């Protein structure tokens, strides 16, 4: 548990732990070229299918740009889901979780390291997806305000990975449910976030669907990035998105911290923190 007041030494120890976890993630994820190629190439297959579907029903070429951005953002959701939310499950299965728990650092610093490493790794892959997508499908982009795109992108990642921290605590005590729950949170989230739609906040999309989708930070960030990168809009049209992303982070972070402490203490009481093969 993270103490309320940190000494300088404790802070440094936690930052070192975060750095160490980030380093492992960066090194581990990039040592296999096949993995890197697959993580860039695979989304292009799905993106390609949707771009051709758009053409089949007569939507304009700019709509293809929306799919490419959506496909790139999905890489972050997948990373949050499989390498952040379900990470404690994997660590328990491989016998590492107890080592994290006895280490003299906050679990939040370990999660922070995972988030930093994961976001850097996935950014490289997302950039590859966008560049490859633009090259293959020749869709037009209209980027008028790159600084705001960068700001919205960073805020989206912060909110998304904070949500991943919250999920990590919930997944901590899962057995085989972890695998199935992570699977379950893929396509439904792609649908709710409108990742493959031209726009989620369109009049034809039911309000209930838009409201449910807005609970996922990716939906808000994705819509803002599309407005900025495809429609040439400026910060004036996306400030509500920026506020919503900041609010998401401010709500999710303390929730994640509380949930992590609660689940850890519950796991200790029930003796489930070292259970394998459930």
């Amino acid at each position, binding site marked *: 548990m993270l103490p309320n007041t940190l000494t300088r030494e404790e802070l440094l120890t936690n930052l070192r732990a975060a750095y160490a976890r980030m380093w492992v993630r960066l090194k581990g994820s990039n040592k296999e070229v096949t993995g890197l190629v697959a993580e860039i190439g*695979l989304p292009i297959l799905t993106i390609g299918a949707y771009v051709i579907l*758009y053409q*089949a*029903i007569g939507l304009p070429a700019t709509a293809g740009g929306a799919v490419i951005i959506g496909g790139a953002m999905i890489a972050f959701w997948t990373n949050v889901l499989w390498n952040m939310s379900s990470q404690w499950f994997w660590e328990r299965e491989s016998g590492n979780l107890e080592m994290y728990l006895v280490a003299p650092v906050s679990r939040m610093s370990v999660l922070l390291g995972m988030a930093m490493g994961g976001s850097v790794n996935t950014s490289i892959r997302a950039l590859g997806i966008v560049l490859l997508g633009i090259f293959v499908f020749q869709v037009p982009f209209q980027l008028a305000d790159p600084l705001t795109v960068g700001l919205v992108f960073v805020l989206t990642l912060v909110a998304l990975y904070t949500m991943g921290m919250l999920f990590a605590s919930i997944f901590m005590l899962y057995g085989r*449910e972890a695998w199935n729950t992570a699977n379950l949170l893929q396509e439904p989230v792609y649908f709710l976030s409108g990742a493959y739609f031209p726009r989620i906040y369109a009049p*034809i999309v039911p309000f209930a669907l838009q409201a449910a989708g807005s609970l996922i930070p990716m939906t808000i960030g994705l819509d803002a990035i599309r407005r900025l990168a495809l429609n040439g809009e400026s910060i004036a049209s996306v400030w509500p998105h920026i506020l919503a992303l900041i609010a998401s982070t401010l709500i999710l972070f303390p929730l994640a911290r509380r949930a992590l402490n609660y689940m850890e203490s519950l796991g200790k009481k029930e003796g489930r923190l070292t259970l394998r093969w459930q």
Partner: protein
Amino acid sequence: MAVADFVKSAGESFRVGWKIESNWTDPVLFATYQVIRPLASLLIVAFIVIIGASVGASANAAFYSQYLAWLIVGNAFYAFVLQIMLGMAILVHVDRTRYEVLKNIYISPGTLHPYVIGRGLVSVVNGAVSVILTLLFSVAIFNGLLHMNIPLNLLSVNLLMLVPAVILGIISLLAIGYMLCAVNIVSNRMEFILGDSVSGIFFLLGGVIFPIALLPAYVRPISNVLPITYLLNAVRESFGLLPASSYMSDLASLALTTLVTLIIGITVFRLAEQRAKKLGLFDRKSEY
């Protein structure tokens, strides 16, 4: 090995696989889980078409409702691909690394092949549940809830056309799943990307959400050798969404591609098995 022993071993493998995949939760939640993913996939493409219709992107309303019916059927039956590819691609990794039982299965007399088949059949059952529930929910949502009058009548399906196509399609998918298992026996780096790669290729090239005629000419020959292309054509013909006159030629092409896939699948698996035995790969650990 006698056929009876093979069937018995495959049956036991099916029983184990079914328990592993289903007893982590109660049956209602399990059924919900089985339908939510394919239904969400379907809703993604359906909403794209609905958004397209709302901006009047193409000719007339009839085009969209017919296209939606075509798309619902293709997307629903694609669940077989997803279930079998993802299930069989991860099988070797899970049994070798996570549960550490692959070596025990291998040293039991003649159980590896029926074991793989039995576990593959669990994915087939999961796929069938997904297909049926997705079709029922689609009709309920688009015709019942949204009153879109999509020309999709589940009671008028020609089962004499549907059943042979589905059986052949499942055999071909199991044969491809067999190849994925073979690759994973000799490799410990592909387990998390193989299933997604193959199902992604089938999604793009198999005519799941758009007719393959819309693909660039240079990739169409690949579509023409994939069993999934003919499976989906034959299935759509049995639903009356494509002219039935091409059914026999699609079924013949499906039978031929299935036979070729089966031969390649068995050969690749046997080669992988020999190599794994020679290099001692059946108990290799790849997690740390």
